[in-house]
């Protein structure tokens, strides 16, 4: 599963990066790599079964707090 994940990410990098390097789009390449690395870390943690904090839970708490202020 992890090998599959790594293969998929390397595939995406090979799909996008050469064109960017050819056109000397360094800024775009940096942004692409940043997002890709972030996505890879999160995906890897999920595959390994590590609990990642859920942003939607935070939104729920926030909304409930504001609703309790209203009533």
């Amino acid at each position: 599963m992890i090998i599959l994940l790594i293969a998929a990410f390397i595939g995406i990098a090979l799909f996008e990066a050469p064109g960017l390097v050819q056109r000397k789009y360094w800024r775009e390449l940096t942004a692409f790599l940043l997002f890709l690395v972030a996505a890879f870390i999160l995906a890897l943690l999920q595959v390994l079964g590590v609990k990642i904090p859920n942003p939607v839970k935070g939104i729920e708490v926030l909304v409930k707090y504001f609703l309790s202020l209203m009533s």
Partner: protein
Amino acid sequence: MLEKGKISSSQLTFLIAGFTLGSSLILSPGLVAGHDAWLAVLAGLGSSLLIAFIYTTLAVKFPGKTLVQINDIIFGPYLGKLITIGYLWYFFHLASLVLRNFSDFFVGLIYPETPIIVFLIFITLTCASAVRNGIEVIARTSIILLFVTACATFLTTVLLVKDMEFTNLLPVLDLPLKQFIKASYAATTFPFGETVVFLMVIAFLENTKQAKPSVTLGLILAGILLVVASVRNISVLGVTEPIHTYDSYQAVRLINIGEILTRLEIIVVGNFLAMGFLKISVLYYGTVLGTAQLLNLRSYLPLVLPIGILMVILSILQFESTIENIHFAFDIYPYYVIPFQFGIPLFSLIVAVVRGLPKKAKEGSK
């Protein structure tokens, strides 16, 4: 310019209609109002026309500018960027919510043994290819897809006429006013108010002046189809309607014309997915284009796949079960979207008028 494509006003109309139908075809809006859901949808449509007026006024004031650039002009570079990040999160999160809704729908009803990740990945890949091709391609597909969906909605309604009990719609408005207002408010935020993402798209309209009529027409078109679907579901399913999470699917399943025309739901589900594809694509496009503009990139293409992966991850992460998803959609979502759908657009418009900004923007664009 990040996006070279241009869309015509009729394409915008169909795109908005398809976007609005999106996931509301599977999760009917206004369910809280019981058998008056169709009235709640109508009320939601009415109030959403007012909100859409705010969005289009903003878009017409700043022709050729997307939401990211509008925020920069109105609130300055720092506060503007902060608001933009909030919006990008909202579009991103909404896209992953819709993705999750559709995948839950498929896993729950049609493919119970398939892992949900399969649907998430394949829907995202399809949308990624659409987003890479640009808004023009998405807008062109919307005409065909919406036409098919409109036909399917009317056809299923006609085929169900013999099962309909119009007394199920009576008594009209027999519920507390507060509950009705809550239901119509929920219908305003989901699906109509979500058109706020079109502030990213209207910039590419050939003639910006036509934004107002085409957005209004698109919303009305979607509203009519939703009301037809809602009346069909209520009159067919009656009091059992609120029990079914996916009531359109349940109603269409009951089609039975002489034991020959049965099990039509799978065809209709294809249409639902087509509308979901439009909705996810537009939101996905808005997120990717907005991020590229925020980071001052020359092309948004490299961001498409990484953001798509993040979307899939958030989709899996955010809910542990369909029940949590439904709870979020009905109890949290209507309040969560207040700043994005009403607060900030209204505030932007007021600030823009007070500061007399459109003139300045014209000078800047020369």
